[in-house]
C-alpha cells in the first residue's frame, strides 16, 4: 500500500469517500508517523486511543454514506486550544496538569465535521515567540535542514509544532493561531501554507488568550486547497465569542476556481526594507510576475506607517497579555507554589511558572498600562494602530489585495537569537501589520533559498476576503510548482 501520509488532506478526504482505504488505516498511518517523528518534538501530547475511536466512528459514517466534510481526516491541534479531558497548557509550566472540562469552539467544529485528533502540538509558551524556543517542552525542530549543514533549525513560532508536523507529514493538517505572525512565519519557514483569517472570522472561545484584539485561529496545511477546506470547517459565528462575526461561511474550496483577471495586486513600497536579502527581493518580483501572467494587474502602493507597526504591537500585545495572564495565580488550576501569604503564593507561582519571555512581556505590559504611562504608551499605540488600519483602507481603494514577503529570512538555527529579544521580534516585521489591522493574510511557499530552505510570500486581503487571497495563493502555488520535500533525517 502506498504511504497514506503522502496524500494531501483533499486527496485523503476523497480517497476515504471512494473507499480506497479506511479511516482506521489512515489514522494508523499517521499514528505510526507521529511515533517515528518524535525527534522533531512537534507533539507535546499524543492521543492515539482517542484518534482510533474517532476513526472507528468515521468508518461507520463512511460506510453509511453519511460522510461529513472532514470525515476521517487526522489533524494535530496546537496546545493552546482547549481539548476536553486532554492536555492543554499552551506549552507553559504554569498550566501543569491542566485538562479542560470543555472543548474550544474551533476544535469542536472540526470534530463535528468528522476530523480525527492525533494529539497536541508544540508552541512558544502562551504563543509568545517566533521560534518555538520558549516552550516548556523545549523547541520543536524544523524537518528542513540547510544544504550541507547538520544544524537543527527553528520551524518558526509560535505555531512551530503545527508547522513542523505538517511539513514532516505527522498529520494531514494542523490548527494554529496567529497574533503577530504565528501562523504565517512558521509556514514560511517550513514550506507549508499558513492562513490567518480576518479577526472575527473564527471564534476565540476556548483558546488560551494572549492578546484578545489580535489573536486569531487558522490552519497550517500542505496546500492552499487544504487550507480552504480547513477554514470552511473552523470558521463561523459563536455566541460565546462576541468578537466573532455573524456572517455566513462560504465554501472556500469552491472559491479557489477562476483566474485573476480584474484583480489588482498592490506592492507596498515600505515593505522593501534595508538589508532585505536579494533572493527574497527577487522572489517577490517573480511572484508578482506570476500573478500578472494569470490576469492580475500589479500596482505599487504606499503604507506609510508600516515601520511603526512592530513597536506599536510590542505595546499593545504585552499590555493585553498582562491582563489575560493575570488569571494564572495558582488558585484554580495548574502550578501552585505555596507561600507565606496569598500574595506570596501568587508571586512565587508566577515566577516559577512563567518562562523568561512571558515574564518580559507581562512586565512590559504591566508598565505601559500603569498609572502615568497609559496615555504615553497604550493610547499612543492604539492611535498608531488606527493609522495603520487607515493606510490599508486607503490602499484597498486602489487594489484588491497586497503581495509582500512573509519573512525577512529563511529558517534560522535554534539558539541563534535566544539572547536578543529585539532581534527575535524583527522576525514578525512583515506579518504584524496584518494583525494590527485585523486583515486576513496567507503565507504560501514561493521558492527555495540558495541553501535549499523554503521561502514564503504573503498575500494580505480586505476584511473577510479570505476567498480572494486563497484564489490568488492557489495561482501562486501552481506557478511556483515547487516539489517540497524536507527529507526524513529525523524519522526513527
Amino acid at each position, binding site marked *: 500500500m502506498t504511504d497514506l501520509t503522502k496524500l494531501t488532506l483533499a486527496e485523503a478526504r476523497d480517497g476515504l469517500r471512494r473507499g480506497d482505504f479506511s479511516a482506521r488505516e489512515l489514522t494508523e498511518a499517521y499514528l505510526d508517523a507521529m511515533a517515528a517523528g518524535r525527534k522533531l518534538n512537534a507533539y507535546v501530547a499524543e492521543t492515539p486511543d482517542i484518534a482510533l475511536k474517532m476513526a472507528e466512528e468515521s468508518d461507520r459514517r463512511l460506510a453509511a454514506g453519511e460522510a461529513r466534510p472532514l470525515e476521517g481526516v487526522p489533524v494535530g491541534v496546537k496546545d493552546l486550544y482547549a481539548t476536553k479531558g486532554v492536555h492543554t497548557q499552551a506549552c507553559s509550566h504554569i498550566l501543569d496538569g491542566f485538562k479542560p472540562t470543555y472543548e474550544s469552539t474551533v476544535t469542536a467544529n472540526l470534530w463535528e465535521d468528522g476530523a480525527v485528533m492525533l494529539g497536541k502540538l508544540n508552541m512558544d509558551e502562551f504563543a509568545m515567540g517566533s521560534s518555538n524556543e520558549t516552550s516548556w517542552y523545549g523547541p520543536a525542530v524544523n524537518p528542513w535542514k540547510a544544504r550541507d549543514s547538520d544544524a537543527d533549525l527553528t520551524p518558526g513560532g509560535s505555531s512551530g509544532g503545527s508547522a513542523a508536523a505538517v511539513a514532516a507529514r505527522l498529520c494531514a493538517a494542523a490548527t494554529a493561531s496567529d497574533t503577530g505572525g504565528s501562523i504565517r512565519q512558521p509556514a514560511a519557514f517550513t514550506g507549508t501554507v499558513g492562513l490567518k483569517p480576518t479577526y472575527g472570522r473564527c471564534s476565540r472561545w476556548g483558546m488560551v488568550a494572549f492578546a484578545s484584539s489580535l489573536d486569531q485561529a487558522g490552519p497550517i496545511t500542505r496546500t492552499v486547497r487544504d487550507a480552504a477546506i480547513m477554514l470552511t470547517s473552523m470558521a463561523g459565528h459563536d455566541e460565546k465569542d462576541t468578537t466573532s462575526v455573524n456572517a455566513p461561511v462560504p465554501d472556500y474550496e469552491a472559491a479557489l476556481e477562476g483566474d485573476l483577471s480584474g484583480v489588482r495586486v498592490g506592492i507596498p513600497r515600505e515593505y522593501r526594507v534595508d538589508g532585505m536579502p536579494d533572493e527574497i527581493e527577487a522572489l517577490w518580483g517573480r511572484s508578482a510576475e506570476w500573478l500578472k501572467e494569470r490576469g492580475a494587474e500589479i500596482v505599487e502602493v504606499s503604507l506609510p506607517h508600516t515601520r511603526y507597526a512592530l513597536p506599536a504591537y510590542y505595546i499593545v500585545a504585552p499590555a493585553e497579555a498582562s491582563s489575560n495572564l493575570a488569571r494564572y495565580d495558582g488558585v484554580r488550576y495548574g502550578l501552585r507554589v505555596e507561600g507565606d501569604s496569598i500574595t506570596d503564593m501568587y508571586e512565587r507561582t*508566577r515566577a516559577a511558572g512563567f518562562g523568561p519571555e512571558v515574564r518580559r512581556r507581562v512586565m512590559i505590559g504591566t*508598565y505601559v498600562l*500603569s498609572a502615568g504611562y497609559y496615555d504615553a504608551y497604550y493610547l499612543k499605540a492604539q492611535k498608531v494602530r488606527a493609522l495603520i488600519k487607515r493606510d490599508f483602507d486607503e490602499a484597498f481603494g486602489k487594489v484588491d489585495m497586497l503581495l509582500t514577503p512573509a519573512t525577512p529570512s529563511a529558517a534560522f538555527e535554534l539558539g541563534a537569537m535566544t539572547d536578543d529579544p529585539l532581534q527575535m521580534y524583527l522576525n514578525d516585521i512583515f506579518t504584524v501589520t496584518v494583525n494590527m489591522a485585523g486583515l486576513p493574510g496567507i503565507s504560501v511557499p514561493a521558492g527555495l533559498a540558495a541553501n535549499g530552505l523554503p521561502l514564503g510570500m504573503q498575500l494580505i486581503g480586505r476584511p473577510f476576503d479570505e476567498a480572494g487571497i486563497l484564489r490568488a495563493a492557489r495561482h501562486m502555488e501552481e506557478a511556483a510548482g515547487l516539489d517540497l520535500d524536507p527529507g526524513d533525517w529525523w524519522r526513527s
Partner: protein
Amino acid sequence: MSVDRDTVRRIAQLARIRVEEEELDPLAKELSAILDWIEQLDEVDTEGVPPMTSVEAMEMKKREDEVTDGYCVEDILANAPKREGNFFVVPKVVE
C-alpha cells in the same frame, strides 16, 4: 525610556511576579532596551486620531440576562490544586 531597578521592583509587584534581587539589574537592562526601541512611536503625529477600539466597526452584542449555563461544580473544581468541599483552598487572605 530607561527603567531602573526600583521601577522593576514596582512593576514586579504590580504583576505579582517574584523577582529576586540579583535579577533586578539584568531585567532593568532588558526592559529598557525594549522600551527605548518602542520610543520611536513618538515620531508619529497622532493629533486628532481616535485610538482604535475595535478592528471592524461593530456594536457590542447583547443578550437576555438569564442563566443559561452553570451548576457544574465538579467541572469548575476539576483542576484545583487544593480543594475542600466545594471550595478552592488558598492561604489566609484577611488577617
